[in-house]
């Protein structure tokens, strides 16, 4: 494991009860070790970004937290049923309408009143007018909003999102982020992965830098910026270039 910085000072929120904890997660694919004893704690209502280059293990970590994959070692504090999950690619049926997709998953979630949940999600996503349109006819941004809404149907207070804004144009990205920030305002704990550093710096309260299956850094975006600047010595003006140098200095 690389040298792990903990630049962020403990806050009142960190002291609060953890919404999700993972301890010593190890995952191997054949001879390759995708995650090497990753531990992570997320406090209630926190918005955490997991960043890192491609192949760092972001999706694998989120899949294990969501219960889609089993770790070879380590543990996760909550059952998959208690965690909302939004995969990177919109997981909905193109030949069902928006309302039918929501209704199907509401029924599969065994909600007391699926119709009420569907109505609520149509309001939340702002897609009531598109309720009877086929999902295949929606734009990428709207599909992602429905994708997120389905992840929220179970009313879980923790939501995991795998690169929620990838493949979206800037306008669609803004709409998705407005939606996610509204969720967070309602008290939902949000953990998302991204390799868009600006997006992480702009929205997350805490960033976790993952590279080659190891956590290299945990802290606020500002603290990450300072760490990167220290590494870089202020020579590079571009944050992304400095971040790449930051990873390289740690052997990644």
């Amino acid at each position, binding site marked *: 494991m690389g040298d792990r910085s903990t630049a962020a000072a403990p806050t009142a929120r960190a002291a609060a009860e953890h919404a999700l904890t993972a301890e010593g997660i190890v995952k191997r694919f054949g001879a390759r070790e995708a995650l090497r004893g990753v531990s992570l704690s997320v406090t209630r209502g926190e918005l955490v970004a997991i960043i890192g280059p491609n192949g760092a293990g972001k999706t694998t970590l989120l*899949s294990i937290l*969501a*219960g*889609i994959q089993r770790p070879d070692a380590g543990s996760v504090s909550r*059952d*998959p*049923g208690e965690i909302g*999950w939004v*995969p990177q*690619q*919109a*997981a*909905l*049926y*193109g*030949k*069902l309408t928006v309302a*039918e997709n929501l209704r*199907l*998953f*509401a*029924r*599969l*979630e*065994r*909600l*007391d*009143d*699926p119709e*009420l*949940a*569907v*109505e*609520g*999600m149509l*309001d*939340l996503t702002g897609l009531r007018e598109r309720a009877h349109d*086929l999902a295949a006819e929606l734009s990428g941004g709207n599909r992602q909003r429905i994708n997120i809404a*389905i992840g929220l*149907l*179970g*009313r879980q207070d923790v939501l995991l999102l795998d690169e929620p804004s990838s493949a979206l144009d800037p306008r669609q990205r803004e709409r998705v982020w407005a939606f996610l920030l509204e969720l967070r305002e*309602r008290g939902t704990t949000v953990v998302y992965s991204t390799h868009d550093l600006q997006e992480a710096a702009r929205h997350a309260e805490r960033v976790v830098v993952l590279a080659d299956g190891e956590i290299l850094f945990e802290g606020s975006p500002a603290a990450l910026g300072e760490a990167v600047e220290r590494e870089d010595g202020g020579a590079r003006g571009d944050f992304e270039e400095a971040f790449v140098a930051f990873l390289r200095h740690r052997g990644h």
Partner: protein
Amino acid sequence: MRGATSRRRSSPSCAIGGTEVRWLLLKDLRILRRSPGLVALLVLYPIVLSVLIGFALSAGPDKPRVAFVSLVPPDSGELDLGREKVDVSSYEDRLFAAIDPIRVDCKGKSPRACRQAAIGKVESGAAIAALVLPAVLTDRLRGLQTLAIQGPPVIEVFYNADDPIKATYVKDTIKSELRDANLALTTRFTEIGISYLDLIVSGGVVDVPLLDDIELLGLERAERIVTRARANVGPVEREQLDRVVRFSRLARENLNLSPALLRSVREPIRVRQVALDGGTTSLSSFAVALAVSVSLMFITLLLAAGALALEREENAFPRLVRGLVSRTGLLLEKTGLAAVCSAAASLLMLAVMSLFVDVDWSRLPFWLLAIAVAALAFGALGVAIGALTKEVRAASLLCVMLFLPLAFLALVPSGSVAPALYDVTRVVSAAFPFKPALDALDAALNDSGALTGPLLHLTALFAAFAALARLALRRFA
């Protein structure tokens, strides 16, 4: 938020979850309904296939078009064989039952030109073969003596060999029909020969041209005359007459055996066919069972594999199996969906085929049982394929690639390939549901054998492929 009051009743268990499976089934049916191309394929495929097979079975095979020239003079069409008259044209009619004749117009043409015209029909593609009866046909057949000295008449066959399958078919058909005609003529010749022997033994009247009727004495009456005459002669002559009587009796007794001997020579070997394996299903009934099996396999495999692959193509699979539906429940739902749809299509196909072929509706419960079990076995194979693929197109391609060889291997007859290769085809066929499904449907539709064996075989394959699919979902999903 309006949905705030809607709460989860309980955490989904790992059990199969009948309610969840029902919602998934309804979802898949809705998606199917919104896929008109696929639905059209599922409905039209069995209908078109059954209509085609129905027409083929009711119409019988096409007769080959054969140019026909008879160089036999018109007034020589009838053979006069002793006391019998044989019309050669009756043998032509027999041959024409097996071919579609194109009669070549020989008016004003020499025999050579007429023969060449028939060959021209073959060369131009108008006929696949030409059959030329020689002018000497009836002359040669007319006299047994001529036949013995000059040899039998030769019928010429010219055929087009650019299509080996058709050429073989034509050769076999004409050879078979000429063999029948030869046998029929031999029978007539034999019967005429036997009637001559009868004349020698018993005597009678013979109609000889130009000489009118001649009465033949026959051995029996000659013997009686000699026996009466010996009473009026001396001992030496009596002894000589006794020798004549003994010879006559011996000849008569031996000639009495000749008809049976000649008849056995005419057809020295008779064939008694006994089917040791399989039933007594007619070709048309077997074709019905085959068509239903093919449709059942085609539809079930494509639906089961496609429906499961769609869950992964739409990225819904991880979301479903993380507590909403168990993997086993998902497999059962896809298998059930494919089985129900294909069974309905198969019954539709049977209903259409019953318009062309006799179908025993009293055996409906057996059909339903065979179709249901076969559909489940195909469904399990389909989900196993679907579990190995991540896209509907890949799943469909894999199904088609598997579908054709399986159908082909199941139909390889014993003795047509080397024994070791045949054993391999049997093992491969036994490892997949098509052959047992065909056996089960044949037994159910045509009462051609025990139904229990194929059903147990299909049940075992269902369990094996379902387990394989479950393993594949765990390994590859």
